[in-house]
């Protein structure tokens, strides 16, 4: 159940009855969030596509929820966890290395940031994306993740620290 969330501004805008409207409002933000989560463009579209298809399938029910957007992101997060479980241990290392830093790209700080985010432990990455980028409160993110708000804050703190350190070290 994702009924306890207050709507974010973007979410309020996306509350059409029609899935197409919902899709149009969410698509960009969703794939970018998935890119932050996966660190890989192809994986992010795959993840976003699967999450959207699940939401589309249940749209009559989802549309009646207080927060269809919350349901969408919870679905994406769960699918991503499932994906990571499938990839198992070996993939964890790969995920961190997914965003390759070739010579051309190293000059581009967006690649540095993406690489730094992709290198974060998965739980920290989830918290960072939900709170810092999607704008959920720690309480809302905690509900989405099934953890306490205080744990979200702790993960966020570690994520920010790692991110800062990692970006300071990058060339």
């Amino acid at each position, binding site marked *: 159940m994702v009924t306890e969330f207050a709507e974010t501004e973007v979410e309020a805008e996306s509350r059409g009855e029609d899935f197409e409207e919902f899709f149009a409002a969410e698509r960009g933000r969703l*794939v970018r969030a998935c890119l932050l989560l996966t660190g890989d463009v192809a994986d992010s*579209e795959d993840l*976003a596509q699967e999450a959207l298809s699940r939401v589309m399938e249940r749209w009559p029910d989802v549309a009646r929820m207080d927060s269809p957007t919350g349901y969408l992101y919870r679905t994406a997060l769960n699918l991503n966890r499932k994906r990571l479980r499938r990839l198992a241990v070996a993939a964890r290392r790969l995920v961190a290395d997914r965003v390759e830093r070739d010579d051309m790209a190293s000059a581009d700080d967006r690649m540095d*940031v993406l690489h730094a985010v992709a290198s974060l432990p998965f739980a920290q990455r989830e918290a960072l994306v939900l709170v810092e980028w999607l704008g959920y409160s720690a309480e809302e993110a905690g509900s989405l993740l099934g953890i306490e708000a205080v744990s979200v804050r702790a993960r966020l703190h570690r994520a920010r620290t790692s991110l800062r350190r990692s970006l300071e070290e990058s060339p």
Partner: protein
Amino acid sequence: MTDGVKRLLDRAVGWYEPSDALLVGARRRMERRRIRRRVSSGALALVVSVLGGLLAWQAFHPPAGGSGFVDDTGWYRVGTVDDLRARRIVYVGEIETFVVTPPGEEPYALSAASPHLGERLLFCRPAGWFFSPAHGEMFDIRGNYELGPSDSGMIGRPVRIIGDEVEVDAGSEVAPAASAVGPADPEPSGPTCFAGTDNVVEDEPGFAGISGPLGRADQFPIDIVEGARPGDTLGNPGFIGAEVGFPATELVVRLVGVDGTVLDERSTSCDTACPGYAYADLIFTVEAPQRATILIGTRDGDSGVLWFHHIPVTLDPGPGVEPGSFVGTWYDEQGNPTYFKDERGWHLELHVINGAEHCGWQSASFLTLAWPIGSDFRGGEDGEDAARSYVRDPEGVLAGDFGVPPPDLAASLPGDASHSGYHRGDWQLWVSPSDIDEAVYLVAANGSVERWPRSGQLIACA
């Protein structure tokens, strides 16, 4: 810091725009799931109606009282004590629970969700333990923790016996069964169900198990998640996915007739390994009842050896779709007709008609599709570019004069095909962005697929 982080993240991904195929792909995934479910449930219905299938059905479902939820409190009737005792370990897919009945003991139930991260546990009969193909946890037959990242034993479920019937409370959890029913079994022994050439049995009938919606857990490690079971009669066609219970670099699912002919084959490559859940679909149109074998091949990542396990199946034609039933009025996603006349005249988004007899074209069918898809073709008002014609000409009556290629009546859908939303009775129109200039696909409710090639011109019988 927060605003700074937000700006940083914006800079990292703000440039990224999703591809236009996102919605098409999402819709396609949804449709594929729906079709699979429909075919799968059709297959099961067929099983019930066929004697051979009935026998197989009874192997999972005891006749007395059947199985299912007995009320809305979560109690689920599994079967009779005698039946469960005869089978010893039963996987009940609907409630994702194993029911174990050791000789001389009462049945007990274990959740098939791992206490670690909830991943699905399988039962490895050769070894006699439960295991997680994803993370490698192992539990003995009573659910005691043996190995891996879990910090507890399997989750138990309450069991009660009403008369002769065993019921499991699917909504409740109890302490791991081991503490309730006695000491643990001896250390697991025998071959494992993980990778390795030493412990994979080649070509042993039934070693590769199948779990349809009812599930069956006594023949893993390979788990066919949708489709038929050994000895089942498949609805037509079976959509068959396989989950690999151990690391592999390639998964091959092959349908082979009794004469050795390969009827269909799908393979999935894994760049590094498939520690779980690689899948491939078999889509095969059955022309007549026949015996066949499903071969599931997994290429061992270390040795490179492709191991096959086979499952005998009986293939019957599905319930069938009435020949020619695609002719007539089609409807769009909202159920509105796609060909109708009003005060403004005829409107056409999509229409399928048979060829005219006086031209000798009655064996051919014509599908006219307004172009671009979803527009309203108004005939002469819009010009010929505003519609496309796709032709089903199985007898080639148009081949000579119009160069219409033959249709493929047992086609496979391209990977990027998706349901257009147009439908009529048992038929759906599927289109593929990569192939729309060449053909469209008509998908029947029984899963058969026809590819209708495009005619370069709108053909009319004078």
